[in-house]
Every structure is written in C-alpha cells, then in structure tokens.
C-alpha cells in the first residue's frame, strides 16, 4: 500500500467515528451486518429478476426494458444500502480490513460490477442491445455480484 494510503488509514483509524464504532456495543456491528445483508438481498434479487427476464425465463410477454427499469431502481437501492453499511463497518476497523487480501479483491470486484451495471442496465433499459448481448451482460453482472459476495464472505476467513 502507498504511503498516502497508509496515512489515510491511520487518520481514519484515529478518528472519533472509528473509535465510536469500534468501542460500541457489539450489537451495533451486528446491526450494520444485518443492514448489509438486507442490501445484498435487494441487490441480488432484483438482478436475478432482470437476468431471468433477459434470458426469457419469466415475464416473457412483458417488455424487457420495462422490467429492467423497475428492477434497476431496487438494485441501486440495494447497492447504496450495502455500500453505506459496509462503509461504517470499514471505518470501525480500517486497518483490519485494508490489509485483508479478500477485502482488496472484493473492492476491485465491486468497482467492476458497478461499472458493468452502469453501462449494461442503461443500455438494457433503453432497449438498445441485441438479445445475445442482453443475455451475456445479465449473466456477467450476476456472476460479478456473486463473486463480490464470495469475496466478502472470505474476509472473515483469510
């Protein structure tokens, strides 16, 4: 990690918010984890609905673009809830997370997944992509988010 990165971590670790979270009742951390899981649930379920529709497995008689638009709103809500709760968990013990290899992998995968989603969902909602691109894009973004989940689960075990 670069020197500025290390300094930033030290500043964060020494901050009042970090102390407050780290020293708090363990049920605060539990609550953050619960909110994190609920965010992931919203995210993955709406992405599943989008994928099922784009593969033609559900609601085939409905416009794919409309299903994508409605489910995307929930998907982004899930992303915001998961990242928001995750950020507080990180601030609570920044050095513990930053030096964890699974955490680094997870952050990289999240960045990729968000970029993929920004490009793909917009194009899918506008109905601009050929069917094969929609199917591949849906499969790719679902795999990316599942990989994020696996990496996240691994943080506690490496």
């Amino acid at each position, binding site marked *: 990690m670069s020197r500025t990165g290390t300094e930033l971590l030290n500043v964060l670790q020494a901050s009042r918010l970090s102390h407050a979270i780290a020293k708090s009742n363990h049920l605060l951390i539990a609550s953050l984890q619960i909110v994190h*899981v609920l965010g992931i649930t919203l995210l993955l379920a709406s992405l599943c609905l989008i994928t099922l529709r784009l593969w033609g497995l559900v609601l085939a008689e409905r416009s794919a673009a409309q299903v994508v638009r409605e489910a995307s709103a929930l998907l982004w809500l899930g992303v915001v809830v998961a990242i928001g709760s995750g950020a507080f968990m990180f601030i609570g013990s920044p050095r513990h997370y930053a030096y964890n290899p699974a955490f680094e992998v997870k952050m990289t995968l999240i960045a990729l997944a968000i970029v993929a989603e920004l490009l793909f969902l917009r194009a899918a909602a506008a109905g601009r992509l050929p069917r094969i691109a929609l199917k591949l894009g849906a499969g790719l973004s679902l795999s990316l988010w599942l990989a994020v989940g696996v990496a996240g689960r691994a943080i506690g075990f490496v």
Partner: protein
Amino acid sequence: MWSLQPLAERLEQSSLGTAIAESRYAFPVIEGTHLLGLAISVGLIILIDLRLVGLLLRDVPARTLVTQLRPYALWGYAIVVISGVLLLWSEATSVIASPAWTFKWIFMALAGINALYFEFIVARRPLVDGDQGALPRDLKAAGLASISLWTLVIVCGRLIAYLPRWP
C-alpha cells in the same frame, strides 16, 4: 429447548459435523452458499410481496408474477435449507443455545403460515385472476406481513452469533 441438547451434541460429534467444522473450506463455502442463496430466494419472495403491496411492476398481474417467480424462489429456498442444516450440523450445541435461533424458527413458521394462507385462501378467490394495479387490502396485508417476517428471519439468523445464550 433442553431436550434438544443431547441430539445437538450427537449431530455435532458425528463424522459429518466434525468434518465440516474442521475443514478449512467447508464451513465458509457452506455459509457463503447459505447467505447468497437466501439473498436470492428470500429476495425473490420479497419482490413478489412488493408487487402485492403495489410498489413494483404494478401493470403485471400479481398472479403472473407469483406463478412465474415461485419455482426459482422455491429452488433457491431448498438450497438455503440444505446449507442451513449442514451449518447447524457442525455447530448445533452453540446454535440452539441462542435465543435468536428460537425466534428465527418462530418467524419462519409465521412466514410459512402466511404463505399458506396466501396460497390457499387469499389467492384462490377468482377476483385475483388478471387483477391489475392495486390489489384488495388483505392481499396487500399478506405481502406486508411476508416482507416483515422474512426480514425478521434474516435479522435473527445474523444475531445467532451475537446472542449466544438466553439472558
């Protein structure tokens, strides 16, 4: 509760229980499967509930969404149950000692009763067929109850590790 203790000890000490607990990869893999499986299956149930409440896909008939999403939610749920049983197998004594586990079962039972009530009583009325837009009040109530109960199941599941025993 106490009568479950000997069974829990037998499970935990069985060869499968110790194999999961001692393997470096088995426990995290099963736990990850449990978590991602529940995000998908309980999540799909919640999407159906949001349709019943009237917050999602209002112009899709509720019946269509329920029948088309149900198989995926149920298959996902089977994965969640199987991985959950395996997790329990490997650490049964500590899991059943947690009050969160007892409450998780209570909320799962209530969610199940709510789903059966919805399937066999509310949704059987002819009115629901082809119904678009806003739904009758008791359908909305069933959706809201389902969202709340499944959320509580997730909350209790996560709390098992944090509330190890009754006060």
